[in-house]
């Protein structure tokens, strides 16, 4: 899968701006280093030429930004969407969270984004990161060049990519890819193979590191409630309140339930977690169970589709059978 270059994207953006198709461009802005790109709204050609970047660190999923961005101007916003971003895009459309008429979506191919946290485990004092062959070359301050394979540098969600196919766009740059039969449920299967005690211990270990920064929720394209229950001081479960360690676990489990059937498995939650909690595993367990109970379903694959959890049919699994099936799988 050939990625389009930064220059192609800049040219596309400038031509759409000058044609008046869009009045601003949601893109990635270069930072201080090779890896710290920031989502940014570009307004003109000069800014695009100076600061627009598209490289291995453009992992941020822009779909959720459209909820806020669409309200800012009467004109259209240009958004670049990687294949996985387009699933969130469709899901947000399904939930009527942004105005499709105010967006010009350009699909761009993606062959996986790097994970700076993983790279840091292998290389300290990073002065530059460049793609090299099938992997990466990290120039370091003290240890010379460190070569990393794709497996060592790419984000987990990209190594287990579910689709290189765009499910929504106005225009596609480069080649279209395919839905991939990925191994993304391997991690869930490993958890299912555990005894309940082992599994509890696993999640206790992971979730006890939570600092309730709420980054997972704030970045999540399925979390677009105008007012989150965890931001309500009267809820008794307010954002930063950690009255006991059990509460942290409840926060993540409640959130996983709330996004169940709507989570497209974009993996932003795990990407942003400052404590490296593999939050995507909770969501993938739900996705795997929903597939098992109701037949394969991918949230966001089709806009305005009726998700199994909001669509009753007489063939639906009985709750008791679901419990049995869950137990059987877990034995």
């Amino acid at each position, binding site marked *: 899968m050939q990625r389009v270059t930064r220059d192609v994207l800049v040219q596309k953006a400038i031509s759409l701006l000058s044609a008046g198709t869009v009045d601003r461009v949601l893109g990635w802005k270069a930072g201080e280093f090779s890896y710290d790109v920031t989502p940014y709204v570009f307004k003109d050609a000069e800014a695009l030429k100076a600061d627009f970047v598209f490289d291995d660190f453009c992992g941020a999923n822009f779909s959720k930004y459209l909820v806020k961005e669409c309200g800012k101007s009467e004109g259209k916003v240009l958004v670049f969407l990687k294949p996985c971003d387009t699933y969130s895009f469709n899901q947000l459309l399904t939930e009527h969270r942004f105005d499709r008429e105010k967006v010009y979506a350009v699909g761009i191919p993606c062959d996986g984004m790097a994970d*700076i946290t993983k790279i840091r485990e292998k290389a300290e004092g990073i002065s530059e990161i460049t793609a090299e062959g099938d992997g990466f070359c990290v120039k370091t301050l003290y240890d010379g060049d460190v070569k990393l394979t794709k497996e060592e540098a790419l984000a987990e969600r990209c190594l287990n990519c579910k689709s290189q196919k765009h499910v929504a766009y106005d225009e596609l740059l480069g080649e279209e890819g395919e839905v991939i039969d990925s191994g993304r449920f391997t991690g869930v299967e490993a958890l299912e193979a555990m005894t309940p005690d082992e599994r509890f211990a696993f999640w206790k270990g992971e979730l006890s590191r939570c600092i309730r920064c709420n980054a997972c929720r704030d970045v999540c394209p399925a979390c677009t409630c105008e007012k989150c229950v965890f931001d309500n001081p009267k809820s008794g479960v307010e954002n930063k309140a950690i009255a006991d360690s059990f509460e942290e676990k409840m926060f993540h489990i409640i959130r996983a339930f709330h996004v169940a059937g709507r989570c497209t498995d974009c993996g932003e939650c795990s990407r942003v977690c400052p404590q490296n909690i593999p939050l995507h595993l909770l969501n993938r367990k739900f996705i795997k169970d929903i597939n098992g109970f109701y037949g394969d379903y991918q949230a966001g694959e089709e806009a305005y589709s009726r998700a199994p959890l909001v669509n009753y049919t007489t063939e639906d699994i009985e709750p008791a059978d679901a419990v049995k099936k869950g137990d059987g799988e877990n034995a």
Partner: protein
Amino acid sequence: MRKISMDSLSALFEAISGTMPLFLPVDGKEGASYKKWEPGTEYSKALNTNKSAKDFFFPQVENMMAFKTEGKNIEVLDLKEDVGPFAIFGVRACDLASFSILDRVFLSDPVDSFYKARRDNAVIISVACSRPQETCFCSAFSIDAAAPGGDVECVMADGMVYLEAKTEKGEAFLKNLEAVTEASDERAAEAEQAKIRERIEKLPLANLSTDAFGGGKTMEYFNNPLWDELSANCLGCGTCTFVCPTCQCYDIKDYNTGKGVQRFRCWDSCMYSDFTKMAHGNIRNSQKERFRQRFMHKLVYFPENNEGIFGCVGCGRCLAKCPISMNIVKVMKTLGGADNA
């Protein structure tokens, strides 16, 4: 000055642990974090811990008091725990500098006794940063990562750890460790410190300047239109505040345990929408206002109230952790104009 070989660090840790609990950076799934030393615990080689060291004195959550209620009557029960001496090994210069910033808040009148009890009981063993990272910018705040200070200061060089007492408390502490350490001259440590300072000068953020900021500049920056674009895509999460060694805003909340009410204090974040929310309104309704508050506090308000000292120590955690890679360096470079271009 004393010394001990890196290979014998566990003997040093064991000796310290014999007199008081010892906490030190240990590798884990999140990166390094402070853990209590036990036989077999390995000291992390990471430059710094994932979260800062402020937790030792200002934990994320602590119970302060409980209430016993009976009919119309209330009894206030003090839940303050008696704190004994403890040692922290491996504190870097940035985190150590953050303690004096926290002191300015918690030890100024009226003294926060919860904080003070822990502060008074800590012996801090700092470690010089032999390999400062690309995200480091402590030198912008006149912090010397080669000589961090603390009660005891360590410099690691050529397989040896050189320890020097910096306070009376540190002297007594090192005296207790004479059985596992040996006397040393300063040459090797000083040579390493000189090398560290050279490395710091070559860091990518070495030239970051604070000159444009400081007390008395509220009106200069408050209405700057650049806040709009800086904050435009801020998620409003609390990651930067929670990993920050100097962020110390807190909330006080009550929790009904079912057997009575406990009043606890927990970290709060000026990035959160309800931080300033009152029954009849909110003075910071937009993320821009909340974002501005965080950086104005560190770069203008705090120095205004604290003899020019900035509320940032350049540890670089926000650079590494912000989900959108927006951070104080970008804010300083954007607002600071020509000084930081």
